[in-house]
């Protein structure tokens, strides 16, 4: 069982690396016969990559979905913002305690219209990961989000949230500044909105930290994102006292986009490009843009009170039980 996305995709990454090297050689090759031979090999490699992806991605289990959702080259919130939300102006600070860079927020334009954007932000290298606290927001992050939601309400701007966090920050400081209250208050402020809200789970939907900014009129999920009440490692540790049984836990938790859709917990699963969003971030961004556009169009036909009521009813209805 692979422990990381890199391990799981290793043979594929090696092939892709090989193609790059061959292309480099072919570009410098002057002898037409040798160049043709190299190009033949490149084509060959690319065909192998295609069939490899087809096979590998048709056999994705829940644990592999977790690895993919966590993959470092996956597009993050700011990647999507830069592509589909022009004129984004990042605003910061909770006006209470501090700045939190695990959540980015601010106004931008979507299809020309002003919107408010809030999303978790991961980092790609060690330095940025530390700066972003691995996208684990502290109370300050959620209180900044609340500020943005309240401005969106005052200035009648639709809200778009991007969810991508392993969990909220569990540290001693976060506890003492009320991380639980901050998450709950953020959810509450989203229930109070009378503007359209679309939330998209783009990578890791990690428990309370995720749902804290995921109270949308519509909740969408990327095909290879996961959404879970507890990380599989934590679940395995509690259930079987063995964090190593994370793959079994991932399967038991039903944390894939297909399961979330089956239980009607998300409204739509956005299909990812061939081989995952990290193989073609632009195409993934275009799919997200089309989905937001479609749902914003629907939601903007509703009145402010209808929007609030629809959001309430959407979450009010969640849960499966029987009556005796």
């Amino acid at each position, binding site marked *: 069982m692979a422990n990381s996305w890199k391990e799981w995709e290793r043979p594929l990454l090696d092939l892709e690396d090989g193609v790059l090297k061959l292309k480099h050689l072919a570009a410098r090759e002057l002898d037409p016969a040798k160049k043709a031979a190299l190009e033949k090999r490149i084509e060959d490699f690319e065909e192998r990559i295609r069939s490899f992806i087809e096979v590998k991605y048709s056999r994705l289990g829940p644990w592999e979905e977790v690895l993919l959702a966590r993959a470092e080259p996956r597009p993050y919130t700011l990647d999507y913002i830069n592509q589909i939300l022009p004129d984004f102006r990042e605003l910061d600070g909770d006006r209470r305690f501090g700045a939190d860079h695990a959540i980015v927020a601010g106004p931008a334009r979507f299809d020309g219209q002003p919107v408010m954007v809030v999303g978790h932000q991961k980092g790609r290298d060690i330095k940025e990961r530390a700066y972003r606290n691995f996208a684990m927001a502290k109370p300050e992050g959620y209180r900044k989000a609340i500020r943005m939601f309240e401005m969106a309400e005052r200035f009648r701007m639709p809200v778009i949230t991007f969810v991508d966090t392993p969990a909220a920050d569990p*540290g001693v400081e976060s506890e003492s500044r009320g991380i639980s209250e901050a998450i*709950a208050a953020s959810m509450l402020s989203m*229930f109070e909105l009378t503007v359209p809200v679309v939330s998209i789970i783009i990578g890791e939907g990690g428990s309370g930290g995720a749902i804290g900014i995921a109270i949308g009129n519509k909740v969408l999920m990327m095909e290879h994102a996961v959404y879970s009440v507890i990380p599989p490692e934590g679940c395995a540790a509690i259930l079987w006292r063995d964090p190593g049984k994370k793959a079994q836990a991932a399967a038991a938790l039903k944390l894939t986009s297909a399961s979330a859709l089956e239980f009607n917990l998300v409204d739509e699963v956005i299909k990812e490009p061939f081989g995952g969003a990290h193989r073609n971030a632009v195409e993934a961004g275009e799919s997200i843009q089309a989905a937001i556009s479609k749902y914003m169009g629907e939601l903007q036909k509703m009145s402010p009170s209808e929007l609030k009521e629809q959001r309430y009813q959407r979450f009010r209805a969640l849960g*499966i039980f029987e009556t005796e």
Partner: protein
Amino acid sequence: MAKVMKPGEANGGNFVQCKGCKKTLFASEFKDNLFVCNYCGHHHRLTWRQRVECTFDEGSFKPLDTELVSVDSLQFPEYAEKHTASVEKLDQNDSVVGGIAQLDGIDVSTAISDFTFMGGSMGSVAGEIITRALERGAEQKMPVIIFCASGGARMQEGLLSLMQMAKTTAGVHKCREVGVPFIAVFTDPTMAGVLASYASIADVIIAEPRCLIGFAGARVSKQAQVVKAPDDFQTAEFVFRSGMLDRIVERREMRGMLTSLVSMFGAHLREGTNG
């Protein structure tokens, strides 16, 4: 040695051992003292029935929504067995019991979570009962009091449990819209998904002394940061100092505290009716 008395067990042993200081207590005195040790003040955990007896006007509690039954929709390993065992042992459907009760004659909507039932965890049924208790308060203009005792969301119901955080928060939203006061009482323990949803956004939050209150398990929190955790980390006293709750109230004072609060904060609801 005898463990803490369970309901109906008083006839057996005359003595109980305190879980705090380990001293031996007279069972009858222990019960009269609302299951609080008269040596060290340790507040023992209560079942929902004991909580009703310790809190509300005698005979005023009427359970509601008792027809709701949990479903193992994920086919989660060992969930059905664990759940059935709890139902049979405790004679209740799930970890939370909802209903209406009175405090000095004032009607309140209530829900009580019981840690003995699967750690008080919140799945679809518990979330529904809590949300209905909040909605009932909002609709019938009754103050809402919820007693929390939970390890958090019930992981055996997966994402459905996470959604109960949103659903119960929506219930609080309904109370706020119509000016119905909502009081949360944190008892040992109040953790994770319960703390990070409806519980933390109550109008007034009261905790029993020294109860465990926290977002993440203490082990995770302490690992996560270089900042040293204080000795009383994640206790009611620590959370009070952090400004996250209004008062720490001893059990024998709890009924009086709640009665005063619902009487004052709920006065505007009763004007022109029975108030």
